[in-house]
């Protein structure tokens, strides 16, 4: 999937992927797509919840074994 930036949160556990994610999106412009890599099982539900709360759009998710890839379009 097309992306403008990647945040590698592999190895981090809740709540750190979300905390880093919130910081990262501030560096990006509206309409850009951020790829988030995470292997925390909590992220599966946390990232969609974070997106629905903050208004950023989750445009895609992929799973490769334990690795989760989220594509977030900046509000």
């Amino acid at each position: 999937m097309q992306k403008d930036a990647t945040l590698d949160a592999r190895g981090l556990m809740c709540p750190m992927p979300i905390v880093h994610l919130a910081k990262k999106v501030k560096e990006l412009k509206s309409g850009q797509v951020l790829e988030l890599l995470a292997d925390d099982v909590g992220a599966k539900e946390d990232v969609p919840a974070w997106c629905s709360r903050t208004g950023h759009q989750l445009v895609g998710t992929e799973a490769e074994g334990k690795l989760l890839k989220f594509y977030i379009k900046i509000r």
Partner: protein
Amino acid sequence: MKSKELCKMADKLCMVVSEGTFDKAYMPLMMGTTAAAMGSEVHVFYTFFGTALLKKVSKPKLPGMFRLFTGVFQKRMTKVGIPGHDELMKQAMDMGINFYACATTMDLMGVKESDLKPGVKVLGAAAFLKMAGEAKTTLFIG
């Protein structure tokens, strides 16, 4: 209730922390940083044994016999990206989280205002309850 007020309510999380052990110390910081990351305004009020966590240097231990394993827990948490207590509290403050020390119990626990981490405010129960009244979620951690 006016819709504007409802909107204001939805975005505020208040927590009360009455214990100073490792688990009770991390809970509000993990919940709080998550809430702040989700765009909420966060207020954490520390009372009784919780006030010790607001000292410039605080090294909370697990409760009871588990205190012996605090180091192991800490190492595991560092490994998954969760920093030490004081560092995480600093990060939380940088995210805009508000920390308060209960005026009365601070005195009781022998914590002086000059002992507190920079940025921590001393607050009374009435002032905190006013904030909690305006928050949709208030959690008690103790």
